[in-house]
């Protein structure tokens, strides 16, 4: 039941023609983000949450905290789980049902970005060694899909984690009552995504640019370096293209981080 909009072909030509001239349909520079707004605590009932608007793209990340058994090889460490739902509310392209490969990819790249950046201090999430640890569940819920869920979703996730308060744990049960203590989060991993359209490489693709893309590259950036990367799309990058995108990502990551 793949959704195909007949206008994509026309729009794709338009995007390509502009790109060849170094231009974008919305007038942005090749290395500009769209307007970004971050609203933390958008879901005050949840331990942590953030709504991110990146242009017309809207993603909420909500954090749930549960107590659970640790993995047997890390009896002292909390557990992180990351999910992304591309609900049909957000786009005519999205369908109800089990997560599409696209949703799985987004969730897994954001998961790696948070996990590998060592952002959450997992060893502080032990309740009782080998028996009970905090499980941190990050759920990205896309409300409007207008391109670049990677960056908007990761920003929402990181902002939500920084906004998260711990819950009470008493007599073996989690009490759903937010504490003053914050979730131990040390870093601000963010993702910067570029797409290649023809020979042009541009930051933060809009929806039309995503439909027109040849290849995509996402860098997961943490303060001192790289924690994740993911290439997508049916085209390719040259090594110099990757190099210069990566250098730009290092600058842009700082910009993104200011929103948290």
């Amino acid at each position: 039941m793949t959704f195909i909009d007949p206008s994509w072909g026309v729009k794709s030509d338009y995007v390509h023609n502009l790109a060849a001239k170094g231009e974008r349909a919305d007038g942005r520079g090749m290395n500009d983000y769209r307007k970004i707004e971050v609203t933390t605590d958008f879901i005050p009932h949840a331990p942590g949450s953030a709504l991110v608007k990146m242009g017309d793209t809207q993603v909420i990340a909500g954090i749930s905290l549960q107590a659970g058994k640790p993995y047997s090889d890390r009896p002292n460490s909390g557990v992180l789980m990351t999910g992304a739902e591309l609900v049909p509310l957000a786009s005519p392209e999205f369908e109800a049902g089990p997560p599409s490969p696209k949703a799985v990819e987004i969730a897994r790249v954001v998961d790696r970005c948070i996990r590998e950046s060592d952002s959450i201090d997992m060893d502080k999430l032990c309740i009782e060694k080998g028996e009970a640890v905090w499980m941190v569940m990050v759920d990205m819920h896309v409300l409007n899909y207008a391109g670049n869920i990677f960056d908007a979703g990761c920003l929402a996730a990181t902002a939500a984690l920084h906004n998260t308060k711990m819950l009470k744990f008493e007599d073996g049960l989690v009490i759903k009552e937010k504490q003053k203590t914050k979730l131990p989060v040390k870093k601000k991993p963010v993702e910067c995504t570029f797409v290649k359209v023809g020979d042009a490489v541009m930051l933060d693709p809009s929806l039309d640019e995503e439909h027109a893309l040849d290849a995509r590259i996402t860098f997961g950036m943490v303060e001192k370096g790289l924690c994740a990367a993911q290439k997508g799309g049916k085209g390719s990058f040259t090594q110099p293209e990757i190099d210069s995108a990566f250098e730009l990502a290092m600058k842009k990551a700082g910009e993104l981080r200011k929103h948290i």
Partner: protein
Amino acid sequence: MGMKSDIKLIDAKGKRLDGRAIDEMRPLKIEAGVLEQADGSAYLEWGNNKVIAAVYGPRECLPRHKASPYGSTLMYRYNMAPFSVDDRKRPGRDRRSTEISKISEEALNKVVLTERFPNSMININVEVLQADAGTRCAALTAASVALADAGIPMKDMVASCAAGKAGDHIVLDLGKLEDNFGKADVPMAIVPHTGEIVLLQMDGDLSPKEFKTAMTLATKGCMMAYEEQKKALKAKYKGGGKK
């Protein structure tokens, strides 16, 4: 319904836990046209409920065997975000959301002029972002606004509100604690201009008289919700909205 507890839901002065009078609704505000991708949309806050609705269509009906030559097929999807409830909701359909989707879809069929768009489908998707009792009424109320925002021809809106029993009183629009510790819940939805009932559920324990009182009160609540629906649509068309 009906968990036992010592909580006194109505005080001596007839006030409820959150200070509301017995026939007072929680604050409700609705904004139309909040999503850029959808053909129509609405965002709604009702007490601590936060709900967003989007409408796509009329468009080609997929899967095709659901298409009808007599009119457009409405498809209503009520869904809770994982973080919308205290115990994380696992993504995907469950029995509760299946039932709510079914009866809400049936309710909207009464007002949408589906016969104008044979063989097509109209998708109504509602996401509950924060749940605080009464989400099915909130969802359906938001969905009607989203349908209107999408320009789908309708005879009228569908407006929804619940009444219930807290302590020994029939009260309007149960809050979360009233829902947990109250004795009955009666969600309703009506067609405002005619008063026709398009959704009615009840669970709990009510005498025949209480049931009638609850329906009367819920109907009033539906009319209050309808006022907010109209406000939202006016604001959108005055302001020109977002789009």
